[in-house]
């Protein structure tokens, strides 16, 4: 399945990302190529995952795994097969938070195995403009792996290519802005605030690929 994943991402997803988004990337050299590492991005569209997977060089690709809501992506059917085998998602059972189950266990396992985890800490897709409140899960993972770099990424424009609820993708240029990595400093609120400030700073640098 690893080969199928590589083929689909390199030969299908990459050309698609090029046509639909232009896949511009600023700060490519800051992209972590070795795990354990956590890539943290804002979320407005399914295109976000596509973009993050396709900007990775083929060599590092096997290690890159997006965290995904189990209740949406792994419900069953073709989407679940695709999510498991092509996206190679790390499931997050966000609907089981209240049950007391350790919903971050699969993510910890992945990081322990040396994977590069892609996380959208808003927890769901936003409207592509303002960033929603960031959930603390990323801080708990950072605390568990203090040696792992946390790399903030701002994805500009993806929410226009395929907004939440839309079925017809429309080609629009997107820009991936990769920021400087940060590390766990020992304090949750300060870490989350630092992360948010860095994401907003990248947002401020993004080209005006937004609705007016």
């Amino acid at each position: 399945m690893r080969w199928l994943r590589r083929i689909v991402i390199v030969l299908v997803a990459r050309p698609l990302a090029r046509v639909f988004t232009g896949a511009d990337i600023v700060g490519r050299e800051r992209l972590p190529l070795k795990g354990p590492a956590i890539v943290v991005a804002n979320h407005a569209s399914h295109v976000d995952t596509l973009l993050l997977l396709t900007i990775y060089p083929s060599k590092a690709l096997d290690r890159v795994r997006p965290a995904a809501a189990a209740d949406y992506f792994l419900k069953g059917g073709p989407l679940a097969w695709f999510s498991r085998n092509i996206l190679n998602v790390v499931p997050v059972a966000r609907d089981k938070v209240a049950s007391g189950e350790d919903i971050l266990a699969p993510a910890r396992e992945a990081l322990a195995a040396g994977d590069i985890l892609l996380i959208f800490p808003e927890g769901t897709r936003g409207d592509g403009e303002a960033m929603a409140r960031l959930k603390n899960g990323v801080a708990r993972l950072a605390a568990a792996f203090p040696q792992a770099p946390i790399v903030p990424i701002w994805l500009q424009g993806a929410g226009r290519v395929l907004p939440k609820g839309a079925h017809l993708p429309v080609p629009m240029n997107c820009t991936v802005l990769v920021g400087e990595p940060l590390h766990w400093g020992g304090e949750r609120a300060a870490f989350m605030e630092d992360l948010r400030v860095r994401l907003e700073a990248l947002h401020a640098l993004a080209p005006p690929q937004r609705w007016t």
Partner: protein
Amino acid sequence: MDVIARFFSGQPPALLWGLGGVLGALTLAVAITWGLSKAKPAKDYTNLRQRIASWWVMIALLSAALLAGWGAVVALFVVISFIALREFLSLAPIRREDRLIVFVAYLTIPISYGFIVADTYGFFLVFTPVYVFMFLPFLMACIGQTRAYLTTMATFHWAIATCVYALGFAAFLMRTPLSDGAPAGPAGLVFLLLVATEANDVFQYCWGKALGKRKIMPTVSPNKTWEGFLGGWATTAALLWFAGPVFTPLSGVGLAILAISLPVAGFAGDVTMSAIKRDLGVKDTSGLIPGHGGILDRVDSLLFTAPLYFHILAYFALDHF
């Protein structure tokens, strides 16, 4: 080998010499960059190197298309129009409700270029400025958002008229029949348009670097100078005057008008796109071409030279149009 030899012997000699000349000029640029980096090792020539590396790719693509024939050139320009339009519509102020209009704007590409494939000049000529002009605003009215309606409509028209319609004229030259007497075939016509337009950019830049003092449009393009503009104008006009008869059926008054007007059109296209970029608050329209920026940054002059070049040829020399 036989196949290759036959392929090249079937090409107009002037076109092959012309393409060879471009490759020679590029090799010279590589040599100069190498010399500069040896002479001043402290200075960073990364951007210049990237620019030249990108030129190799662009020239390889264009040469291959010109040698392959009209179908390949039209296909290449479809791709250029698509990327240019995508860059423009992604940066321009467009409302959330206009997502469908963006999609429809892309549909003008297959239709407009379809008229080039079908070789129906009249339809091509009226489609964008008449029918797209009426249909898009109607569709926008149907969607029902009237806030910034007029400015958004103008944005779409400008985008389609330049990225699709204007560039289409360059591709349409490839449909010139052999009976119209272009000495290096239709590909020679397109070749001279591209060479003169890009050379004009380069000449203006070089003259500006060498002698530039008086700013010509400080609020729009602060690096452009009168010296660069006039030097580029004279040099490109001379290039067109001498190369024109080799690649086009033009001579006398027609050739003189082309030589005098094309460099001005190139400058106009360049500064017009600069004004738009300044309004949008961006330096480059994307990061697609290393060292150059986006496709729109590269074809800005061509947006204005292509229709002018086409119409001067059509009026003075080509019976087909």
